[in-house]
């Protein structure tokens, strides 16, 4: 699966990267990313996940070719 990160998340992860591990749900991806970079836990807890540009919950099932965007809290305006 491919991952996109934005804004404050880019202080912890690349803007775009690939995850090859076998992860079943969004919550597993989140756990995996916290393991990769424990400092990112706080901002990951505040972030929304989108799969193929649609927001999903943590129990959403991921398919290997999904494109996942991790969206920190909005601060437009």
């Amino acid at each position, binding site marked *: 699966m491919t991952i*996109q990160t*934005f*804004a*404050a998340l880019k202080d912890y992860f690349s803007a775009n990267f690939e995850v090859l591990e076998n992860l079943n749900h969004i919550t597993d991806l989140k756990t995996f990313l916290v393991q990769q970079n424990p400092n990112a836990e706080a901002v990951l*807890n*505040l*972030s*929304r996940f*989108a799969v193929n*540009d649609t*927001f999903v*919950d943590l129990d959403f099932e991921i398919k290997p070719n999904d494109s996942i*965007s991790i*969206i*920190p*809290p*909005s*601060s*437009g*305006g």
Partner: protein
Amino acid sequence: MTALALYPQAAEVNIEPLNALPLNLVALLSLAHHPKAGAVVLFSGEVRDNSLGKAVDYLEYEAYPAMAIKMIHAIVAEAITRWQLTYAIAQHRTGIVKSGESAVVVITTSPHRTEAYAANRYIIDRIKHEVPIWKCEYFTDGTKEWGGNCNCQKLTGDVNKHIYEFDQQNKL
């Protein structure tokens, strides 16, 4: 062909939701006149010269266009239907925006003013809470900080559940 055919259906005017160049409030406002609209409300969110007591040099807005554009279109369309607006647009800056410049503009028009005000507030509140746009504040002391306007998760316990000022107003 009736006299009404001379006027465009203003609600359908298509404005790009994201703009990398300075927002042209004047041009956008000039599109908002409509023979059925008795009320025009414009909101401009502008960059202040300070944030939490620190002097701001400029802001930089990042967006995720693939989602932001679709979401702003959907929010505006929903407001048009809900309040039967004659016209509504929203446009947000990306890139560097300096103090005093507009970062976001929302224009709503309707036959009477209650709907134009309510819809305007609704659109800006949803944009600020939901749409994937982020501001980074660059201070005059050389430091920078990502803004975090939306803190709803602290109250709702769910990053996908927001508390809108618009609804708070209605509950007063």
